């Protein structure tokens, strides 16, 4: 009897080693196939480009996201603005009051397109095509919301330019001005994720559109976007006080106009809403996307 392993043991050992090697090779293959951060960025850019082309090539969307907000600025300034008593406003004139608010309105309405676009992609099978590709699992939604971000930045700058032509001025210097635009853009980015989730969940583009509109419209109007909330009946005031749109509009206004408007508290509130919405809806939308049907 020698101390060495028997033939059977040698065989078993070599089989076990082979199995372990095969498993390791498999793991490294899988590791390599997983789409990392840089791959996720690259894929998101490809997807974002697609959606931006949609904007540029569909007159309906282009009008909805650029001409309509500008028309709203003009409409409120010249049609309703005259009827608004400037003494009831915390600012010198209505256009100063209006512009920060209407930036929030325009980007919020614009965000509903995300729901429609995603739901349309589900129907036509484009999302299925994406899900069958070895691309990043987050890139479709990240790309879509990235394209929204680009569009919103453009819309906000365009509307600010129109506002300047009508007499609006940032009153607290360049940093506060950038802060005004940033808070509006960040809020609309968080909203994109809500609407992405709606688009993934709703049965059909029409439902997505209706659902988005039915919720968005009252929230936007029952806020401080167009007029100060202290003119509302008291029950509506309560609603409006807690409305995130009010917080964001107040924050934008506080940063843009300053004294006598408070800015710190509304900005903190707005940031809390932005972070809160993102913390809930980014994972929720991604989960819904991964799960499929």
């Amino acid at each position, binding site marked *: 009897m020698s101390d060495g392993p028997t033939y059977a043991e040698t065989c078993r050992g070599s089989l076990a080693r082979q199995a372990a090697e095969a498993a390791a090779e498999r793991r490294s293959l899988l590791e390599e196939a997983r789409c990392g951060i840089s791959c996720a960025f690259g894929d998101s850019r490809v997807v974002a480009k697609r959606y931006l082309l949609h904007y540029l090539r569909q007159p309906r969307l282009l009008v909805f996201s650029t001409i309509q907000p500008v028309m709203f600025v003009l409409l409120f300034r010249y049609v309703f603005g005259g009827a608004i008593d400037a003494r009831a406003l915390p600012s010198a004139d209505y256009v100063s009051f209006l512009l920060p608010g209407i930036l929030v309105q325009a980007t919020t309405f614009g965000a509903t397109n995300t729901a429609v676009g995603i739901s349309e992609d589900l129907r036509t*099978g484009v999302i299925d095509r994406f899900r069958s590709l070895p691309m990043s699992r987050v890139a479709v939604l990240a790309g879509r919301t990235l394209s929204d971000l680009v569009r919103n930045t453009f819309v906000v700058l365009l509307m600010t330019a129109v506002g300047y032509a009508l007499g609006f001025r940032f009153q607290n210097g360049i940093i506060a001005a950038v802060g005004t635009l940033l808070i509006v853009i960040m809020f609309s980015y968080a909203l994109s994720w809500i609407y992405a989730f709606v688009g993934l969940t709703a049965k059909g583009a029409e439902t997505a559109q209706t659902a988005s509109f039915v919720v968005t419209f009252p929230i936007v109007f029952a806020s401080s976007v167009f007029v100060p909330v202290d003119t509302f009946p008291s029950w509506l005031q309560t609603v409006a006080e807690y409305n995130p749109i009010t917080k964001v509009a107040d924050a934008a206004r506080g940063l843009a106009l300053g004294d006598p408007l408070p800015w710190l508290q509304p900005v903190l509130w707005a940031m809390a809403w932005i972070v809160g919405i993102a913390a809930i809806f980014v994972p929720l939308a991604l989960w819904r996307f991964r799960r499929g049907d």
Partner: protein
Amino acid sequence: MDAIHIQDLEKTYGDTVALAGIDLAIPEGIVYGLLGPNGAGKTTVVRILATLLKPDSGRAEVLGFDVLREPELVRRIIGLAGQFAAVDEILTGRENLEMVGRLYHLSAGEARRRTVDLLERFDLIAAADRAVKTYSGGMRRRLDLAASLLNRPAVLFLDEPTTGLDPRSRLGLWDIINDLVREGTTLLLTTQYLEEADRLCQRLAVIDEGAVIEEGTTDELKTRMGGSVLEMRVADGDRLADAAGIVERVARSTPQVDRELGRLTAPAERDGVSLVVRTAEAFDEAGVDVTDLGLRRPTLDDVFLNLTGRKPMQPEDEETPGDAPEPAGVGEGRS
């Protein structure tokens, strides 16, 4: 190793059983057909294999990679052209393909090169820079197929690839399929065109109500029909039942009855010719008028009819795009 290995796959939607336990082993390098009527579960199988859908239970592997545990690896080696073209309407044909190429992580140059190749191969180069919304249904279909080939997949899934194609495009696609197989690609295609399965597939599975009811090479399936088919037409529709009784007695197998055409078909045993004679005599004695009586080679239609008791291409609950009543007309002018 099998290209595709499926074990006891089950999937239900609410009360609907889409797959009731499917097993398949598909060798590498062949065209494998999934044949079945509307709602049989073909698309469900394809979607599970393409990692788009999770089964309730069972296993599925593509080239040894598990679709549930290693979907990232599966997605790298497969191509999918679903039942309905999944192309972007707003982008041009070229942009569609280049985008898919980039999402396969090809370099920009490589994506461009393969895009041009595929546009040429699918006869879309003239329309390459037009928005897809101006494409005809067949052009969209071809673009979708082109997109599924950008990664030069080892295993390709085609869900009713020729539905909605005109005969010329259909022949073109058949050529492409043959080329792909020559290059070593394994294809799983679903079809309702039996003629197509007959021409293209080396093996096929007939599925119905979520279960495989027959599997084998096309020749095996035909041979199981008994080699030949006895077919006759009865002049008087009222006597179809009598005629069926006679055939059952003489041929010792239950005939399939097509009431509209007044046609009976039954698998014929090896001694086909004597069967024809005996059947003719029996009809004569019973005084049943037959207008046509003879033997012919079985088609997959017969196989299907015999297995499911149904005709394969009758649209049941949903509209079948381009449902041609006679599959025989499909590939005319080719062989």
